[in-house]
């Protein structure tokens, strides 16, 4: 039995695709068969972040509409044999995502995979609601910034009312808060909401905090999920997230400013 994870946020540009890519790769690195699906029909980007944009032949919509078989559309990752990517269509519109069609694809995938990661588009329209409908777990990706926090709260409301679990009165989706683009320096200066502030407002389980990092842009520039950059703080933070998701108890890292010497603190910028 596989587990379906949705990576969602409401607001765009907060790091959903970066997170979905990191999560799927992290789970694959730990030996789980993982597939990551792009639900952003018309504006696909997961293929770029995963570095497989030139290998897309068939897509998610082709499979839903019976124009291709699932294994024709699945792209096998070249770095990890446990990882597959199901790209979104670039040319169709999102109306092609039917509840029945998506359900069928997810059921078929669950026979072969341990984890199915659904990369949701921004907004609360069809693509986003389809990405979350069948989910077991949800990662609510949030930036420490007012509009992102508000949109996340809105998503939390939708997750608890518009999912299959909610409709069938089953155990609700497990929701996790993932705070991204966190800058301890700006929090220290009182310019940015702190982890505690965001937790106070959203009251969700914190699965991780990803620090603002140059490595994220480098990773997307080169089409390599940032979790593979073990040198970077963001990559390490994502590895921690995967470990926590799988049940390990790890303290949160990168929440404090890196300690500098006394001279650095007196004369530094």
């Amino acid at each position, binding site marked *: 039995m596989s587990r379906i994870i949705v990576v969602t946020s409401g607001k765009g540009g907060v790091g959903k695709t970066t997170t979905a890519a990191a999560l799927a790769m992290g789970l694959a690195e730990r030996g789980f068969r993982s597939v990551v699906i792009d639900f952003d029909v018309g504006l696909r980007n997961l293929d770029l972040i995963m570095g497989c944009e030139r290998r897309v032949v068939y897509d998610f919509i082709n499979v839903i509409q019976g124009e291709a078989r699932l294994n024709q559309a699945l792209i096998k990752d070249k770095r990890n044999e446990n990882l597959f990517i199901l790209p979104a269509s670039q040319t169709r519109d999102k109306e092609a995502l039917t509840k029945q069609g998506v359900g069928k694809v997810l059921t078929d995938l669950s026979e072969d995979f341990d984890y199915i990661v659904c990369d949701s588009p921004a907004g609360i329209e069809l693509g986003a609601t389809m990405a979350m409908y069948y989910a077991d777990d949800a990662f609510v990706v949030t930036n420490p*910034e*007012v509009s992102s*926090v*508000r949109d996340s*709260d*809105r998503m939390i*409301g939708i997750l608890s009312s518009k999912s299959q679990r909610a409709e069938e009165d089953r155990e609700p989706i497990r929701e996790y808060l993932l705070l991204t683009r966190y800058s301890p320096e700006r*929090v*220290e*200066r*009182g*310019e*940015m*909401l*702190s982890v505690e*502030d965001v937790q*106070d*407002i*959203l009251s969700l389980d914190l699965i991780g905090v990803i620090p603002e990092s140059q490595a994220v842009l480098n990773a997307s520039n080169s089409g390599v999920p940032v979790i593979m950059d073990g040198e970077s703080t963001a990559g390490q933070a994502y590895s921690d997230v995967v470990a926590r998701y799988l049940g390990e108890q790890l303290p949160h890292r990168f929440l404090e400013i890196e300690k500098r010497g006394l001279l650095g*603190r*007196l*004369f*530094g*910028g």
Partner: protein
Amino acid sequence: MGLLSYFKSRSTSGSASLAKERLQILVAHDRAGRDAPSYLPQLQRDILKVLRKYVAVEPGAVNVNLEHDEHHEVLELNIVLPEGERSTG
């Protein structure tokens, strides 16, 4: 920065505290609307209809609000009567 900021404790005048304050109010308001039963708007219209049989109130005169407490829920009904109605009613 530098020497001065070393002695300054974590700034309370930063905009983050304002952001938190605004969000707390906003989110509480959003959630109240979200958790409200779906019959509230219809209830509001029905009450207004009945009321208008007796009193010539404005369309926006009836306000229905559901408040949650730890132990119970309070349905708050606020009706603004036009001036002078008391004597004629």
